[in-house]
């Protein structure tokens, strides 16, 4: 197929943002329609891509190549069974964000939509790129719109959070840039399909792996560089938090799978204990911290760090179950955390407070909302029958094959996860009414119920029927592990 479907997918949102930029639209209705329309079109296009992807091949498909920098760095795009899911997740979450901003964004709506659409372009670009430089380009470029989203539409401490987010991430990734250029001089290419074939010398692997880690650890975020995340989440507007939690955090997990493990198998093996310990600390420590939060968004942010701990743990078990579980966990966390942030956004738009103490007893006045909230809370703690369970279960299965200690401690984290989520539900949804204003609140409106119900449907659907996802990445994961084992043996 010659039609550049991936480029179209990447640049469609950018094009529509240009359209919005040039349109004169005082009431913002057209802007919302244009962006919604284009993001849904992008979603459908990505579904078509998913549908036409050959699941039985671990090769990159729909590959596009164009000479870019002096013929030695190519603009190369392609997808396989792993990346397609993240692309679909991105294009699925973006329209939801756009719907959510109808209720929550009151000022400069046009600019907000432009920022979201440009961000979507960069996010899709990250998951499509098959060249290290292109990957870095999109990976970093996402900082600009996110910085503005937090800074312009954020809460009271938005400036601090936006700066912290930007500088932390930039600092993490400059070392990755050094590593990318070093790889270029070592192998003569930045095309990752070529690099997979060339073995990077053993003495370089460890240091390069660490350079990549410095970027991914910040983005993931892993303990101890996770501190930007709660700040960014708390201050960002709802749509910003949703994108941050659902997609931006997944870039790092994707990066581990796409770059760290296949390019540096020996280093990945060598540093497994480091990743195990950091993941376990993330799971236990941030779960405990989450217990102590009185801000809902902060609590969910810390729970994200804990969930990402499972992801890193699962990836570096380097077993089939572990990696599949991690991917599953990332997708399901993308849906669940997005939904939880939307839930917080719904009540925040009404009461303008994120504090747990301002709520309580919502169940008597907002029954529909409470039902949806409980569904997502249960999914977040990994109740069987929701997508959250499968991911964690597979990760733990993988972990038990490698290290009993790590698996035991991670399992303990599951209990803590249940503790903070249930306690949150108890204090917000049930319990006594602390705040008289709750009696005047209206239940979820139409646009909110569309967003939340869609998410709830998929959370439960993928809880019972994981087949469509598993089927997609199965072959790619198998080949990833085979190549890794091969590299270790040949060493």
């Amino acid at each position: 197929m010659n039609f550049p479907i991936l480029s179209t997918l990447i640049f469609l949102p950018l094009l529509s943002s240009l359209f919005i930029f040039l349109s004169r639209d005082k009431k913002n209705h057209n802007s919302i329609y244009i962006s919604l329309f284009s993001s849904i079109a992008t979603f459908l296009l990505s579904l078509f891509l998913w549908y036409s992807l050959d699941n039985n091949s671990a090769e990159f498909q729909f590959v596009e190549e164009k000479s870019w920098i002096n013929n030695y760095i190519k603009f190369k795009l392609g997808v396989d069974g792993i990346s397609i899911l993240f692309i679909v997740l991105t294009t699925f979450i973006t329209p939801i964000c756009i719907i959510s901003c109808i209720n929550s964004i009151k000022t400069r709506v046009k600019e907000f939509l432009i920022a979201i659409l440009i961000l979507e372009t960069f996010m899709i670009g990250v998951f499509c790129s098959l060249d290290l430089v292109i990957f870095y380009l999109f990976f970093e470029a996402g900082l600009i719109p996110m910085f503005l989203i937090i800074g312009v539409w954020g809460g009271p401490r938005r400036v601090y959070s936006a700066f912290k987010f930007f500088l932390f991430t930039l600092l993490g990734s400059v070392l990755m840039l050094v590593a990318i250029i070093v790889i270029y001089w070592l192998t003569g290419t930045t095309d990752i399909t070529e690099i997979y074939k060339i073995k990077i010398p053993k003495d370089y692997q460890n240091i390069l792996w660490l350079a990549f880690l410095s970027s991914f650890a910040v983005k993931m975020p892993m303990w101890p560089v996770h501190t930007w995340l709660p700040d960014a989440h708390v201050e960002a507007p709802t749509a910003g938090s949703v994108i941050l939690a659902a997609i931006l955090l997944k870039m790092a997990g994707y990066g581990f799978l796409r770059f760290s493990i296949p390019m540096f198998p020996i280093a990945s093996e060598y540093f497994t204990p480091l990743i195990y310990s950091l993941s376990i600390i993330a799971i236990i420590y941030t779960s405990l911290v989450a217990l102590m939060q009185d801000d809902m968004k902060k609590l969910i942010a810390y729970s994200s760090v804990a969930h990402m701990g499972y992801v890193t743990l699962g990836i570096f078990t380097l077993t089939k179950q572990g990696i599949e579980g991690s991917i599953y966990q990332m997708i399901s966390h993308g849906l669940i955390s997005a939904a939880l942030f939307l839930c917080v956004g719904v009540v925040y738009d009404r009461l303008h407070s994120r504090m747990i103490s301002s709520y309580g007893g919502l169940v008597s006045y907002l029954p529909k909302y409470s039902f949806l909230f409980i569904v997502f809370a249960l999914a977040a703690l990994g109740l069987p029958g929701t997508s959250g369970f499968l991911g964690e279960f597979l990760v733990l299965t993988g972990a038990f094959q490698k290290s009993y200690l790590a698996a035991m401690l991670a399992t303990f984290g599951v209990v803590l996860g249940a503790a903070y989520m249930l306690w949150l539900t108890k204090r917000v949804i049930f319990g006594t009414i602390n705040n008289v204003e709750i009696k005047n609140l209206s239940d979820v409106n139409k646009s909110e119920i569309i967003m939340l119900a869609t998410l709830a449907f998929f959370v439960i659907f993928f809880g019972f029927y994981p087949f469509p996802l598993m089927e997609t990445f199965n072959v790619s994961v198998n080949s990833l592990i085979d190549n890794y084992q091969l590299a270790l043996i040949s060493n």
Partner: protein
Amino acid sequence: MITNLNILIPEIFLSLSTFSILMIGVFLKKSFNIIFNLTSLIIIITIAIIISSPNNEEKIFLESFTRDAFSNYFKVLILLSSLFVLNSSKNFIVENKLDKFEYPIIILLSILGMFFMVSSNDLILFYLGLELQSLSLYILASIDRDNLRSTESGIKYFVLSALSSGLLLYGCSLLYGFTGSTNFDLIASQLNKENTGAVFAMVFILVGLAFKVSAVPFHMWTPDVYEGAPTSITSYFAVVPKVAGLALLIKFMFIPFSNILLEWQTIIIFISIASMILGAVAAMVQKNFKRLLAYSSIGHIGYALAGVATGSVSGYESAIVYISIYVIMNIGAFSCLYLLKKDGQYRENISDLSGISKKHPLLAISFLIILFSLAGVPPLGGFFAKFYVFVAVLEREMYTLAIIGLLTTVMSAFYYLKIIKTIYFDDSIIAFEQTKNRTAQISIFASCTILITFFLYPSILNNLVNSLFIS
């Protein structure tokens, strides 16, 4: 020997036409407008002459003057940037009563000086060109002669620059004494490590050149002159002499000093690191936009010098690409300043920018693009400039230089973000006048368009620069 004067046509045309318009200025009253427009015309014609002239290397006047692809590229870059700087600042010049007819003429003379600098293949010609340029710049810095700060900056620049010229001249005479020639090619063949006196001379020449491009530790004049001189002059200072200075520096490294690579490399690495760090740290606390741009330009010169420090052709190429993109960004940034007018006064404090995103969304987004590009965030042009430099640096396995360079990128991102914060996150205080400064708007638009679309064809500039060293 019959000298082929065809090679000199751009210089001859430039000098003759400069003196012709000087005559017009002397005999015609209120001739600023006419002379200004003629200047633009002269610049455009000179560009056309240079572009249409062949690129093969030829040397005339006992091999003291070279015309090759390298010098032609820099001449065009100098002319183009002067054209944009001059035209976007015209309103500013007129409104601030700087519209003396000498203004454009002196600019043309400084361009002539730079022409000889980038074409020189001989110490004497190089020094003459440099002095012609510097003398013109001293006058320009203090052109607002009734303004205390402008005169101060002129004097400051003159005193320090004269000192550095003296050092440079001393270095030249030492070099002549120890190698027996003033010709670059002959010097190159005479120079080696054992020739200690000549190595000593090299240090003096480097100091002089570092002063001209305002690299640390010879940068002290930059912030004061940038702040004191009128903005139209500052934008000229920030762009054009830097290009010529860097061209000269590369030329010195490439021809006369190519045999003593290790000796000068250490010095350049130090200057580069110091410039990057000082540029990043000192700019953080600045409140005046022009002063901030002064420190930012010091930092940027540090990155360009990192490319030079590699001592490889790819490093020189990356430095040339860097300075070209730097020119584009700075023309954009200064053009933005010409739109910040309130109550008949041009504002230059960062705090004056607060909240302009609400009242002037297009100006704000231009600022955003230019500032993120200056910070080197992908996918804007500034990222590619840095990328090429670090590719060249890492090719030579200079890991320390690369890592320090990238860390200072993060530090410098902080103060660019601070300006963006003022523009986008703060509440509006003042609204600026809707100035009809079309030329400045065109410059901003051109600069932003190039910076945004650069990632589509990032190798255009590279291919062009590549061809400069194939001869």
